């Protein structure tokens, strides 16, 4: 199946990897966990560049955010004390639903993002956490918001660049936060039909002062439901408000029909999961409807 591969490179430093990526150009493909690359079996790939020996397997917590190396595996996220303690553990929870243990031992967070599947489970969570990605080529290094990273289904703004790390900035201070990750799939480890990540912060009177709502598998890229977020701000969580938010979410998503689910079903479930996520957030933030 991969008899068209001419060379498998194992660079030992980031610098070496970046020079190789420049050299192999569009016939090259970055390999980390390989789980997506092998199943896609793209015949235009002639060179594979293994980036798992560059020292990019780490999770470093700082004040209230953290930095995650791109080749940290899903299992690594799941078991990391820093990730389990961050934002109610929703990133650890999302990572734990990315396929079977066998796949989670291989699949990496950088790969989950760079593969740009609209259904990627860590993507919705990282959008809700305002994550940024650090990408580099042999000439420059830049940091970009994850919201600017996606160009379409299975397409990113990466050209000959390597995703080096994911940066999660400090979470908002000064009040109780609530978090939730919700996933609808056929089985516990299946690809998402819809996934939702949410974060809320309420003031002392229970008014929402900060809200994040991100969804996956319901559009060409993982997306933020910004109108729904705006609708929440300044309000007290009630079932009426959640109904409004659900309607707004259904207008903001743009799902397709495929072998797993119809667009109509995905749209309906977007609202259901968004409401479920916000109820869980509200309970944690002490502003239960």
């Amino acid at each position, binding site marked *: *199946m*991969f*008899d*068209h*591969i*001419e*060379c*498998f490179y*194992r660079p030992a430093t980031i610098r070496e990897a970046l020079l190789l990526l420049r050299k192999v150009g569009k016939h090259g493909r970055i*390999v980390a966990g*390989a*789980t997506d690359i*092998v*199943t896609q079996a793209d015949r235009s790939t002639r060179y*594979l560049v*293994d980036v*798992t020996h560059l020292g990019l397997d780490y999770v470093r917590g700082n004040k209230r955010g953290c930095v995650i190396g791109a080749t940290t595996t899903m*299992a690594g996220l799941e078991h990391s004390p820093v990730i389990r303690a961050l934002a109610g553990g929703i990133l650890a929870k999302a990572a734990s639903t990315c*396929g*079977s*243990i*066998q*796949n989670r*031992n*291989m699949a990496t967070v950088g790969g989950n993002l760079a593969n740009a599947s609209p259904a990627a489970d860590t993507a919705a969570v990282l959008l809700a956490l305002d994550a940024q990605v650090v990408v580099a080529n042999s000439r420059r290094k830049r940091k970009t918001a994850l919201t600017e990273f996606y160009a379409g289904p299975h397409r990113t703004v990466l050209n000959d660049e390597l995703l080096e790390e994911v940066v999660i900035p400090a979470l908002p201070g000064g009040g109780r936060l609530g978090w939730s990750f919700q996933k609808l799939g056929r089985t*516990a*480890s299946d690809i998402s039909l819809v996934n939702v990540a949410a974060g809320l912060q309420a003031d002392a009177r229970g008014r929402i002062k900060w809200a994040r709502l991100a969804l996956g598998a319901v559009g060409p890229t993982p997306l933020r439901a910004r109108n729904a977020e705006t609708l929440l701000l300044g309000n007290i969580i009630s079932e009426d408000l959640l109904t409004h938010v659900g309607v707004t979410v259904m207008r903001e998503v743009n799902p397709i029909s495929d072998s797993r689910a119809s667009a109509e079903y995905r749209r309906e479930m977007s609202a259901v999961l968004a409401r479920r996520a916000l109820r869980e957030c509200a309970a944690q933030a002490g502003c239960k409807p």
Partner: protein
Amino acid sequence: MNSMQLYLHVNGELKQWTIAPGDLLLDVLRREGYFGVKRGCETGECGACTVLVNGKPINSCLMFAAQAEGCEILTIEGVEQGGKLDPLQEAFLEYGAVQCGYCTPGMILSAKALLAERPDPTEAEVREALAGNFCRCTGYLKPVEAVLAAARVYRQSRKQVRPSGARPKAERRPALHGKKR
């Protein structure tokens, strides 16, 4: 076709193999005679091709052989020691957890990785650990029971002071054997 050299340990033995850069680990292991590594779905769903890489279960159908450079691979062929079956293998026999046998190597390896990390797993943890290993003979209940039984044997054997090299026998549990459901 370009070729490359691969150095790795398989079941404790150092191997040097000539591989193609795009070879998958599953194909290389089977080519080298490790037929306990089963070819199933080839898309990372069924777990029949599970092997342990540095102690962790992975699907060898989704891993390039070149990624295994310098790694320790354990296949089902390396689970028995000195002609003695591992307590997990004994327990799978004892509990009738094998039907056609195609998923069995993967199940035992997934279970082995679990018990190395969690000597006293709950039933839920066993089920989670085996979730990536599909059985199409509908035999999930008995593998779960077998893994829980093997865990008890492992724990008992650790408590006993025993001469090095001696391995524990699977616990005989006649009360459960042949139990009606």
